[in-house]
């Protein structure tokens, strides 16, 4: 499983440009805010259209050469900076929103994320760390081919960060999903990334 990304996009006065060819494990996009790291993730997810370039996962073109697969068919597991849980659905409905695959995966995933006791809660009653774990669970349950993480730890305190960090390492090492993660924290970049790309 590999990412091939070669994109360019003008956003206001900023020109976002990245060329990247990454294999298994976690690839971290590292750099200060405002250089367009999140925009790259949005382009990979199909939420933002590059001005030019190509995006391919495992040899399959998602964008470029006349192809532009809509986000709902890219099978990206996207975890945003804010959890973005749907406020009018309980945790269980949030988790099941994009579900693919069998029931035992559900038990596995809520098990290792430790969110089984939250299923009947409303998102607004969750702490930041709980919400982010639910968001990771929701993304994983959609049976993604790869995971996009946009500063998933930035809104959390130290203790919560460690929880989420362990969950991400589990996804990387046990579930073996390729990860593309954005961060501006060198420590996170070092710990999660099998390779770090500076932007």
């Amino acid at each position, binding site marked *: 499983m590999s990412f091939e990304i070669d994109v360019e996009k003008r956003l206001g006065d900023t020109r976002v440009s990245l060329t990247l060819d990454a294999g298994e494990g976690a690839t971290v996009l590292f750099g200060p805010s405002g250089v367009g790291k999140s925009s790259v993730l949005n382009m990979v997810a199909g939420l933002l259209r590059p001005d030019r370039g190509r995006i391919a996962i495992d040899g399959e073109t998602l964008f470029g050469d006349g192809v532009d697969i*809509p986000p709902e068919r*890219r099978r*990206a597991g996207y975890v945003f900076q804010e959890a973005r849980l749907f406020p*009018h659905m309980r945790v269980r409905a949030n988790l099941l*929103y*994009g579900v693919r695959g069998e029931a035992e995966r559900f038990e596995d995933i809520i098990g290792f994320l430790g969110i089984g006791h939250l299923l009947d809660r409303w998102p607004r009653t969750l702490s930041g760390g709980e919400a982010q774990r639910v968001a990771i669970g929701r993304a994983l349950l959609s049976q993604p081919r790869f995971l*996009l993480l946009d500063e998933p730890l930035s809104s959390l305190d130290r203790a919560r960060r460690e929880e989420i960090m362990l969950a991400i390492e589990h996804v990387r090492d046990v579930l073996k999903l390729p990860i593309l993660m954005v961060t501006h924290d060198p420590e996170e970049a070092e710990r999660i990334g099998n390779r770090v790309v500076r932007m």
Partner: protein
Amino acid sequence: MLDAAEWGIVALSLKVGGVAMLVTLPVAFALAWLLARVSFPGKVIVDAAIHLPLVVPPVVTGWLLLLAFGPNGPIGAWLQDWFGITVLFRWTGAAIAAGVMALPLMVRAMRISIEAVDRRLENAARTLGAGPWRVFWTLTLPLSIPGVLAGAVLGFARSIGEFGATITFVSNVPGETQTLPLAIYSALQQPGADAMVWRLSCVSVGLSLVALIASELLTRRAGRGLHVL
């Protein structure tokens, strides 16, 4: 208390207002969604055209409706030829006038509530495999429902109060097009009907007040979905 004739006027007003609101609702929602979520050439003009009934003298709107729905008008002739019906001097015509006048208010309220739905949530849903229709039914609509209802209630209240376009378009026919404001207007022309004017005016103010309060309460829920009601 109201006498039988006055109750009839109130009932007719509720019927006209209710039908006007129900028929206008889907149109208003579609227009609100279009204005809130789609960019297209000429959007400014569409936006302005929708708001015209709010600023054009109602008598002009009524006259334009008369041209369109009259026996020689494009819609009137079509209704007559195909269905053998006319809306002139009928309560259905009063509902059309009320609906047209209520449209801009309904579109405004609904548009604001659709715009208040966080697009980042919609994007998250797309990445989870939901196509545009599923996103609409599972997120945009449920999260904007309070604003949609607020707009509907506001439109209903506006419909009940409609006067200028109605009297121009379908005249003031007791039992058919004579809604509350038209009945009050008629009573004002008669000597000794002061008590009736008072009673009907009180009903008007009461209905409007209830609708405005309901609409305001619903608007405050916009963007958070009905589950918090």
